[in-house]
């Protein structure tokens, strides 16, 4: 459903995304892991059609996001990591506006809005301006906005940031049900337990490249890591911080 072909992105001479290719099929939840600055967000923003790639292409179904954007984006819901929402719209107005951007309106949309607000416990806030929402409530609203037009694929950057444990659990359930019904989710996350528990496959990115890809089990086999946790695997693959240096930094004020 989502296919990246030799995707690359350059900022001047800096290579943010370096020739990556992957396919995420229907009914699959795919995790993007990697240290800060690895190129995960840039990749997701290219998939969402916000950034133009320097090379390669992104297909949603059979449609190129950058050559045939209007059709490709109809099937996509995007949840960014630092969302800005129109502060002077109410929650319900914002969702109605987003549905309108996807060409949807009418009673069906109103029912969907009510349903999503109910699920995310925002019903009592539906007519409040977004500027009065807490960070977590905004995050819930953004997630609702990515679901309001019933997309076939969801691209999500750090979905759990700012959510309370109950909402985080709800989101996990929503994603699992979404893929169980044939949807596709591509998400980046730093929460390795989430990736390990939820993702069918993961890719580990570093310096703009995919350095490892597959199921967590396959990655363990690839690196001959034995029965280590995903965190340990991640640190091995990305050359994680040395514990001694960390201890020195933390003990620096003693």
């Amino acid at each position, binding site marked *: 459903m989502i296919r990246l072909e030799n995707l690359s992105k350059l900022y001047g001479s800096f290579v943010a995304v370096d020739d990556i290719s992957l396919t995420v099929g229907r009914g699959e939840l795919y995790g993007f892991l990697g240290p800060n600055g690895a190129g995960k967000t840039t990749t997701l*923003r290219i998939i969402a059609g916000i950034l133009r790639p320097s090379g390669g292409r992104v297909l949603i179904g059979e449609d190129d996001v950058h050559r045939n954007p*209007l059709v490709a984006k109809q099937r996509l819901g995007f949840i960014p990591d630092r969302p800005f929402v*129109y502060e002077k719209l109410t929650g319900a107005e914002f969702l109605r506006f987003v549905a309108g*951007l996807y*060409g949807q309106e009418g009673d069906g949309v109103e029912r969907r809005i009510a349903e999503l607000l109910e699920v995310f416990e925002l019903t009592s806030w539906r*007519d409040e301006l977004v*500027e009065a929402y807490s960070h977590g409530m905004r995050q819930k609203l953004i997630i609702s906005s990515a679901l309001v037009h019933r997309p076939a694929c969801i691209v999500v950057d750090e979905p759990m940031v700012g959510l309370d444990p109950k909402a985080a659990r709800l989101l996990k359930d929503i994603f699992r049900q979404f893929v169980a019904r044939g949807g596709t989710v591509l998400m980046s996350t730093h929460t390795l337990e989430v990736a390990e528990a939820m993702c069918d496959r993961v890719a580990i990115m570093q310096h703009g490249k995919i350095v490892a890809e597959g199921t967590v089990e396959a990655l363990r086999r690839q690196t001959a890591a034995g029965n280590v946790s995903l965190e340990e695997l991640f640190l091995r693959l990305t050359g994680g911080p040395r514990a001694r240096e960390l201890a020195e930094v933390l003990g620096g004020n003693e």
Partner: protein
Amino acid sequence: MNQPSLGHVLQPKWRTALQRLREERARGPGRPIALALVGAVFWLAAYGVLYRILRYFRGVEELGPLLAGKLLGLVLLSFVSILVLSNVVTALSSFFLARDLDLLVSAPVDWLRLYLAKLGETLLHSSWMVALTAVPILTAYGVIYHGGWLFGPYAVLTVFPLLVLPAVLGTAITLVLVNIFPARRTRDLLSIIALGAAGGVVLLLRLVRPERLARPEGFRNLLDFITVLRTPTSPYLPSEWATQAIMGHLTGSLDPLPLALLWTTAAAFVTLGALLHRELFATGYTKAQEGAERFVRGEFWRRTLGLVLRPLPVAKREFVLKDIKLFFRDTTQWSQLILLAVLVVVYLFNIKALPLHRGEDVGFFYVTLVSFLNLGLAGFVLASIAARFIFPAVSLEGRHMWLLRSSPLDLRSLLWSKYWVGTLPLLVLALVLTTATNVLLEVRPFMMIVGLVTICALTLAIAALALGFGALYPQFETENAAQIPTSFGGLVFMMATITLLGAVIVALWQAVYQYVRAVYDRRVVVVGPDMIFWFVVAAAICAAATVLPLWVGLRRMERFEF
């Protein structure tokens, strides 16, 4: 414990300013040269006007210095009034809403350093424009009254405490207000009060017809004139002390008291302000963290404008509705309409005050000329409004581009919505202004039609230029819409619009001149091929100025990356 120095607390600010300068330098000389050019033109114009007025005053026996002092007093008084208002608004941001406050308040920085750092920031942000405006004015005084080389430093010494006083006063007012109302409510309240007051001052200044001061013969007798001269002075106003200090130096009767009063009062104000800050800041800052507006009457727009826009595709309709809701729910945006209303009243008042209709033939010629040139002036007014309301439209979407670009919204639809949301109200205003001025001028039907058609074409072009240049020079990081038009892009837009107005007026004059000539020679006015040719040229210029900027803007928006 060692406290960080005031310089250290302010370090991020001046380092940011330095970095901006470096970035400017890296962009090449075009921008600074253009800014310097516009600044020089403004300074020279202000200097020229003041120079002529003061030279005239200097020629008036005995009353001359009185008039010059009076004028300076009025100028400084209006400066102080503007500064108090602007400091109140700025202090709200710098003391209570700025993003660096969490860091500063949570760090072990003592209250006095925090106060002085933020007072300095407030003073700089709200006073730089007034200070720059004062330069050509005071230079004109120095030149006319032979102030000598000492006058420059002396003027700085006089003006500086005059800037400090409103800064402290404005900050103190804000501090008290925030302790009474939540900060965000206070901001809304202040923007209305500030703009209302500014509008009131402009209106008052115009309606009292200050030009009468320069024409004593217009008064019934000398007594009337002197009464007018004496009206608004008060020995307790700092602007009056500054006037006395400056005029004393210029007329050779130097008195150190006004200057001493200015400096000691400024020092006392800073001390009292700091004490007030110590008492009230902590509770005010806590209150500032709460209180966003909540309840909203969302159904109103859907049931009114939503129905009118029903024939539009849903994406366009929702986009237009969204833009209109955002405008009317943001007090800092809609409150600018107050100034706009004042501008229109002053504009019409100026036209009404013109001394026309004295002789039949001369009257006709001047009426036609004024009505024609009025198109340029009205165009300029429309350009200023477009700069404020349409130019920032693309920039203001910057933070939400993640949503717009990841949705299947066609950028053409976005641009279309932005264009018409901005253009339609502008068009209404343009037609009202032109019709009203032409009715006041009693122009003939030919000029009325030419005027109305031209202003419509100009409005479409000006709105397109504003949107196009707004997309070409976006300011995605600026949160305050009012700051966007003062950017380099805003300047380029105004220059482009002035060029457009010049070109259209030159082209149209060829046609209008034939009409004036015919009426003057008492011939029948024939709309011949020559006249039609020039009308077509003007129409072509307007059409090009409408289509090209929108096309360029669209191309630019397609290349935006976030």
